[in-house]
């Protein structure tokens, strides 16, 4: 069964849902509660919301329209939603290369992967002064002989 007409509508709803998920838990953003930190991990799910919707639709069709008929059947649509759900969980920007450890969970990031900031309790590995910490501890430099 093909869903020709509703595709754009579904995608729009999906995009809206993604955008709305920037709201705090419960969806009850208090008036003026601007910019509160998201407790969930990774990037904001709506990080790609500023992209051109046409481009997004094109990319999704390209990615999920396996039989190439320019329509998404039930299986393709299911795969697309599953993919979106995973991205929401991981905070992955659609199409972005993450350099994730193979086999690692959706929330995992290796330490020292530049440009990514762990969230939730996994803030950047820091020393007490805010300097980045290395996995396995800090190797000291041998003092220079005088």
């Amino acid at each position, binding site marked *: 069964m093909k869903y020709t007409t509703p595709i754009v509508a579904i995608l729009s709803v999906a995009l809206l849902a993604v955008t709305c*998920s*920037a*709201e*705090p*838990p*419960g*969806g009850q953003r208090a008036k003026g509660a*601007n*910019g*509160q*930190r*998201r*407790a*969930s*991990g990774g*990037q*904001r799910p709506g*990080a790609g*919301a*500023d992209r051109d919707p046409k481009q997004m639709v094109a990319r999704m069709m390209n990615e999920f329209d396996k039989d190439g008929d320019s329509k998404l059947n039930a299986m393709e649509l299911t795969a697309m939603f599953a993919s979106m759900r995973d991205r929401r*969980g*991981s905070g992955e920007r659609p199409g972005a290369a993450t350099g994730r450890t193979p*086999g*690692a*969970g*959706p*929330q*995992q*990031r*290796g*330490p020292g992967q*530049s440009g*990514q*900031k*762990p969230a*939730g*309790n*996994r*803030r950047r*590995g*820091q*020393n*007490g*002064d*805010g*300097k980045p*910490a*290395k*996995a*396995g*501890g*800090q*190797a*000291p*430099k*041998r*003092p*220079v*002989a*005088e």
Partner: protein
Amino acid sequence: MLLCAVIAPAAHSDELTRDELNFFETKIRPVLVRECYGCHSNKAGNVRGGLRLDSKELTHIGGSSGPAVVPGNPEESWLYNAITHQDYVMPPKRKLPQQVIDDFRKWIEMGAPDPRVTNIAEIRSSITADDIQQARESFWAYQIPVRQSLPQVENNSWTRTDIDRFILSKLETSGLQPADDAEAWQVLRRLSFDIVGLPPAPEQIDSFTAAWNIDPDGAVADTVDRLLKTEQFGERWARHWLDVVRYAESTGREVNMTYPHAWRYRDYVIDCFNDDKPFDQFVQEQIAGDLLPVSTDQQWSENLVATSFLAIGPKNVNEQNRVQFAADVADEQIDATTRVFLGMSVACARCHDHKFDAIPQADYYALVGVFRNITTYFGNPPSEFGAFSGVQSKRNSSLIRLPVGDPNPYDKSYSKQELASLKQEMTDKLQEMAETRRNRGRSTGTDAKNAQRNRIRMNNELANLSGQLAVVDASGNPISYCMGVLERDAPANTKLLVRGEIDQPAQVVQRGFPQVLCSEPVEIEADSSGRLQLARWIASKENPLTARVMVNRIWQHLIGQGIVTSTENFGVTGHLPSHPELLDQLAVQFMESDWSVKTLVREIATSRVYRMKSTFNEQYHDYDPDNALVWRANPRRLDAEAIRDAMLSISGEIDFDRPRGSEVAKAGYTRVQGGVLGNPRDIARKAFERAANNTRAASGPGSRPQFRGPAGRPFQRGRRGGMGPAPEEIARQVTNQLDMENAKFRSVYLPIVRDEEPRSLEVFDGADSSAIIGQRESSNTATQALYMMNNRFVIQQSTSFARRITEVSSIPAEQIDYAFLLAYGRKPTSGERSATSSFLRAFSPSASYRSRSVETLAALCQSLLASAEFRYVN
């Protein structure tokens, strides 16, 4: 002295170029005003997340997460993070155009040129250079100690050492005479407790008394030499030092996180005292061990461990503001360094000029410049999965990898299967966490609260798992870590802060040391933080305080009170020395003996002053009630460690082997809650499971299990009818984890967790590990008596004490004699012997005198341990 704050408009905008200024004014400021000031500005009266963007300084300080802008580094700048909608979402309802985001990135990469400098230009101190010079020239403690000429005394025959001459001279001037020598057993007991913290054995008492009757001086000298050579000397004197350096194995404060590697510093201090490491070297290693040139990796490792001195202080890891936390850590380090080594407090100059000493506020910030150039390591390193932390532990830190690993590592190792299992568990938890996050917002009411609780629980579990994985290598073998400090690459001066407020910066202050202590102006190289220079200056003969302060500490521990009774305050508000010439003489001798602590201890312990009686003299007391002139020995209550160690020693149960690590190290990096290392609920659950398993295993076919508690008492029948430890017994094991009532090692090895010190130490005025304690309190309270009457450790030791007596002799009179000899170092008087016999008969009227049980003798032994004479050294 008044503080003069000069408020002046900014003279310039940090020399911005025209292009930089234009860029800021056209691309950055309008966006800040339009998009950010509404919620992050002092003027708007709204500072969400503690972030204010009004000025350059406030922008760099940032809010609760850290600096909003790190010049040159967009990835470390939370402002850039937020506008690119990574961890934060700013502005909250939409994203800025990409061009604006690019402008901000470019601006940060340019070094964040910003003309909005704070208006406070300079704080001028009311303490002038003349004031400092005058204080340096006139105040006794700021003069370099010089060798004194020996005073003349009338009673030359009484003196043995230079110390005696100085003391006797003052006594004669005042018309007083020193007390007679104490009894031989009293002198030996005093020596033994003072030098090794343990009572003398009966055979030592006999041999010392015999030697004393022939040659008292020789007997004392030989005994001192013997005691100084024992390993117990280091354990005793290290504990004095650990008091001063606020040693503990946790952060303390609201969120009490453990320091699982602090024990390395404890062991380092013990070894230093046993090796008689020159005190100047000891000082340098603790302040700048990471910078001292070394010839071997072993030496390097030792020096790194020594810097734990700067890392073991109390910390508020729940502090929201990173800059505030860093300022507080540096402040604590400065306070510890100056009070411990220099006997003066500089830390009150954090907010204003010192009210009494000639220490301007700028001197404090000169030291801040030295200490802010270090990174302090006190937490746990990140694992390969990243850095995790409990919900409330916001300020984390890593650890230093030791160049030389432990040949016999103490920390837990994992097999490959265990390691794989831990990693799998970690992965599962991460996925569970991701699932929970995906589902957030879908639940309401009670479910939402449960979900929140779940997230917190998972956070903590992730932090624990990561903590376990972080400290082992790929094969599961433990990596050797230590706490400590390391130098940063680019030393920099700091700005003076008005009233110590981090958002009120004033002028930049050059790195330096307190001027009043420096006879010459200090120059610190631009490429050096000055910390090594500071360490060497503190440990030099040119420093007027270091040797005096240490000599005074040693004198206090041996004589009962310091020559300067305010051991941490040699400043204007401190007490004047009772014998300034003696203090100087000893300080000079100390330095000339290569800063040898053992030599100084020997010098004092072999003096005639040391062996005086403590007999009270009403006439002398009226004249000198504080015994400042030392006309008699000061009767002293044993400190908490000595009381516990003495009980173990007398009972014969003491274990002199040094335990590896500590109970805290065993628990790893975790939060201390309710006196328990870790989550009390989890630990209790595991304890119950373990007990249940043991019971099942022991109740096999044909077996008749004997369940016994730590005190050898049989466990009660469980509530469900099966044999096993009573619930209250398990609860006791869990909640008394840090008391370690069954431990037999010396007290210096007991776990010292801030605010949760072991009961055996706490009740007898053990040192507050959150403070610098040069002189402990010595109270005599009802709780101490109740402890000695009811505590199971005391009861255990009394029983062992009684068994020891029965093993030596079965004759009642000899048993009583031996009990007194062990507990008091002397035999009972005839009256005491008679009273003791009566007590035993009354305690056990049904038993015959000869068949008196150990239980009856144990009651006698406990009475002896609970007596005042046992707890005091006269």
